[in-house]
């Protein structure tokens, strides 16, 4: 069984390194500040007994007043997982750091989120629409994008 | 890599295809021979039963695409009755959710036949009496175990054998 690491435990370890990074520790996930995302991610990836070398998925949820990005990290060596979240509270121009340099697997998923949610990933090498065509108006998965508009 | 095995593998493959030359073809020659489809088949028609329908519109609500268009009204005896039911078979995906949703259980069915094609788009929209059971439209056993028992057994490819050996 993949063990879901308790987020409070990791939060304690992170507090030493990044005292201001953690906004909230829930039972199943760890919510951090967007500014520290890249640092924390590389810490999680490179710390020997954590070694989250596998990024299972990235997704984004639109909670109307903010976007929440969800990262599920897995370690294939220790077989444990952690859900990392960050909230993006600028609805106009949401910008998050790109994870492509750490995990190549983020490449298409970040493009997908950029395409469907309209979140810009800073540092992504090839950030452009992936599913929809150039010139498509809006970002369909946002809640303010009603379903019946044809474009 | 290379051909270190002297073309052994090629010869083996050729032997297998040659063996298949002498196996009987598994083709069903469709217009003349037909397979018995599954008893629960979700054929390309929806059959509506006017007599048992209580006009609750559960099927229309259950439909994921809203291809069932049902308008109801209160009759003189205060009972709901269906004024008009239209199903667009060009839109319908035959998922069977309407059949599952039916509270009476025998007002809407999927059909057992699947031979259905039209030259015109407009002819795919059927309504009212066209949806009723007829000689050309048989009821399928999907979600109707009682009907299921009356239907012929399905032809299975697994069961066909070649000279006593499993069909291959």
């Amino acid at each position, binding site marked *: 069984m993949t063990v879901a690491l308790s987020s409070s435990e990791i939060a304690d370890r992170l507090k030493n390194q990044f005292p201001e990074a953690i906004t909230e520790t829930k039972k199943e996930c760890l919510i951090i500040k967007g500014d520290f995302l890249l640092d924390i991610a590389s810490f999680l990836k490179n710390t020997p007994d954590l070694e989250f070398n596998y990024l299972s*998925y990235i997704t984004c949820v639109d909670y109307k007043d903010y976007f929440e990005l*969800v990262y599920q990290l897995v370690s294939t060596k220790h077989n444990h997982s952690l859900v990392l979240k960050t909230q993006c509270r600028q609805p106009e121009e949401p910008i998050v750091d790109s994870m492509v340099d750490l995990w190549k697997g983020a490449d298409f998923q970040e493009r997908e989120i950029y395409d469907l949610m309209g979140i810009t990933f800073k540092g992504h090498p090839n950030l452009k629409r992936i599913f929809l065509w150039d010139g498509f108006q809006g970002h369909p998965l946002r809640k303010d994008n009603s379903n019946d508009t044809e474009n | 890599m290379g051909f270190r095995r002297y073309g052994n*593998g090629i010869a083996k493959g050729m032997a297998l295809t040659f063996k298949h030359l002498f196996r009987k073809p598994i083709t069903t020659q469709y217009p003349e021979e037909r397979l018995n489809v599954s008893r629960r088949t979700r054929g390309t028609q929806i059959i509506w039963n006017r007599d048992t329908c209580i006009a609750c519109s559960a099927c229309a609500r259950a439909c994921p695409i809203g291809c069932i268009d049902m308008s109801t009204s209160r009759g003189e005896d205060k009972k709901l009755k269906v004024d008009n039911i239209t199903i667009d078979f060009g839109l319908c995906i035959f998922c069977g959710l309407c059949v599952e949703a039916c509270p009476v259980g025998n007002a809407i069915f999927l059909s057992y036949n699947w031979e259905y094609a039209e030259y015109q788009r407009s002819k795919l929209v059927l309504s009212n009496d066209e949806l009723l059971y007829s000689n050309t439209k048989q009821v399928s056993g999907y979600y109707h175990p009682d009907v299921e028992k009356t239907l012929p057994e399905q032809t299975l490819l*697994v069961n066909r054998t070649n000279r006593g050996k499993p069909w291959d």
Partner: protein
Amino acid sequence: MTLKTEPFVINLGPVHPSTHGVFRLRATLDGEVVMDIEPIIGYLHRGIEKIAEGRNYKQDIPLTDRLDYVASMSNNLPYVMAVEKLAEIAVPERAEYIRIIMAEMQRIASHLLAVGSLANDLGTFFTPFQYMFREREKIVDLFEMVCGQRLLYNYMRFGGVSHDIPDEFIPALCKLVSTMPGFIDEYDQLLAENEILLARLKGVGILPKELAINSSVSGPMLRASGVEWDIRKVDSYSVYDRFNFDIPTEVIGDCYDRYRVRIQEMRQSVRILEQAIEQLPPGEVLAKVSPRLKPPVGEAYAHIEAPKGELGFYLVSDNSEKPYRLHIRAPSLINLTALREMVIGWKLADAIVIFGSIDICLGEVDR
């Protein structure tokens, strides 16, 4: 002596015989050698995640069918598992077994297609493909018997499956299971040692272990690169912990290894099926669930080992009839990430084969 050549750009697809759907590869070639590629997808983007937000939980099941349309059963499963996790619905034991039987049959069917179309990409004139389609047809027959459709099954429900299996199902399945290994041997005879096939596949498109993990690749591709990672074992779901089976892995991670892993997995699936038939308990197949399901506020992620890789559904509920957000972790899309690294430097013909060996389904890539 070096010749000065000018690279040129060629579009493979979106309509191309061996892109398995509407996939487009903008490739820069230097003669026959691929200099660079850019996969362009989205030609089948139907907005399933958005549509799902507009329909209620049950109506979303048909949508999941159409993700990886060659493995519908496997797509139903994680979705209903995610909803069950959210709404805390218990599944009867018999239903769990039926689900596993279906999922494993689906794995065989999907791998048959994957191997068959890989052989097609190699240029065999449809013969292995036709032989494999014959076995797939047998499996499809059984699916049809259970749920009435041949391709898009819409079979699983919250708290079980929509129908119990008919009486004639188990004998037919036994027959299938008993003959299947023989057929897999035949495919091995036809393909595995063929020198031309070996020359085309061995050493081609190597995906090193580190890169595979880093690219979030999953499924047979990851295992071919030598990582023993199978959700059925590492994060066992349903009742998989009651079965004996191995995770086939290979070492190098070239096209041939990916082909081998698929063939081995079919054998393992047959093993699981044999055990599942033995253990199948009697009883109910569907727990009582309100038709207007309103799961409590929260989120859930359920994942399974689908034929193509780790298929997961991330579901957010706001206590209404409709899901607030449904994200699909599509293995095909993420497996594509590694394509560029594998293809560059190979010939055009190899690019096609490497692409074929990933085994993607465009319905799942684009959603």
